[in-house]
């Protein structure tokens, strides 16, 4: 299941969606808004998506993960809009018969998500200023 929403993410409810009697392992990853990056303090993050393409890429990730691992349920949800410190930006839940593949699939899904899904964050720094986070693109 993939979704993009501007509402707060209920990770407990999303985890329940992936639970299953055939699963011996449920792995949950939460991405959360971090206050300190080195010496700089963040006050909030703004997330923006290209929704049509992001949902398409997320569905492709889920399909590929299901080919590579024996997955019972996969849940990939990202939030957009303004997020305060500590709020959850992304939830990935994977249930599998055994923990090894649940860990592997969850990690691969999140790592690959960050490379290919068209969603962006903008830092709002406590010392003033905002900047889009675009790895490798210094302007």
């Amino acid at each position: 299941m993939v979704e993009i929403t501007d509402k707060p993410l209920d990770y407990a409810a999303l985890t329940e969606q992936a639970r299953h009697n055939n699963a011996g392992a449920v792995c949950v990853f939460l991405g959360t808004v971090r206050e300190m990056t080195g010496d700089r303090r963040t006050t909030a993050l703004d997330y923006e998506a290209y929704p049509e393409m992001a949902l398409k890429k997320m569905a492709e990730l889920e399909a590929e993960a299901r080919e590579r691992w024996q997955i019972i349920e996969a849940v990939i949800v990202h939030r957009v809009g303004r997020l305060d410190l500590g709020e959850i930006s992304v939830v990935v839940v994977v249930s599998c018969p055994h923990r090894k593949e649940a860990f592997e699939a969850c990690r691969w899904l999140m790592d690959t998500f960050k490379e290919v899904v068209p969603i962006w964050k903008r830092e709002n720094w406590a010392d003033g200023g905002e900047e889009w986070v675009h790895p490798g693109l210094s302007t």
Partner: protein
Amino acid sequence: MTQTPPAIAAIVPAAGASRRMGRSKPLLEFEGRPLIARVVSALVEGGARPVVVVAPPADSPEGPPIARVAAEAGAIVLTPETRPAEMRDSVELAIGELTRQAPPPVAIALAPADGPGIDGALVARLLDVWRESPERIIIPKAGGRRGHPVVIPWRFVMEIPSLPPEVGINALMADCAGDVLEVDVADKALIADLDTPEDLQRLREAEGRQVRTVRLFAVARERVGRGEITVELPEGATVADLRAALAEQFPPLAPIAGRVMIAVDSEYADDAMAVPAGASLAVIPPVSGG
């Protein structure tokens, strides 16, 4: 001794910010020439002297190129220090300049800087109509709509600076409705407006070029100030051509156009790929979700 015939001057307000178009309209090219050059040439060919162009301030990105192109086409160029708030303010600057001439003109032709279809023959015809009826305001009309240029007797022109501050030039036409003489011109294109990206699209399609909508995200959107732009592409353009067009037509994108991904129908596309007709296009800066 030959006597100089009384002159009909022209005023071309070109200082606007082209907000609805999102790009400088006077510099858009039509049939290989910037619109401002075409309009000035048409006014000169049609017999208007002098042609006064009010350009954007010199510290705006489009100011110097508009001033240069207009001067090369034969205009006297006025460059205000700050951008005139309204079209009327630009016109008043030009009136001030013409008032200082001895003798002042007997009438002015008022034309927008971006009239794609204004040509010398249309200008000449409207000036001839005015010479037959020098007390009247001459307005071309096609398909039931009024267009440009408008020829205004100097005595009405001199009233423009004393119009109430909140009204535009159109208030003069309304005040002088009984003095207006409409001239039917057959070709709608002669008087077509060019205000929005859709207008430009129609114009380009008439020229055989394609105009495509491109969505912008994150830093690209912020640099341009909008989430959707229209880009002109040559026929058979590739993704690489699209990058080049983005950099050229939207200077704020120039520093990043070579280092973003281009999505075609929600798929990352190679530079060699031809841009398919009808496909949705987007600029994808390096992603940072999670």
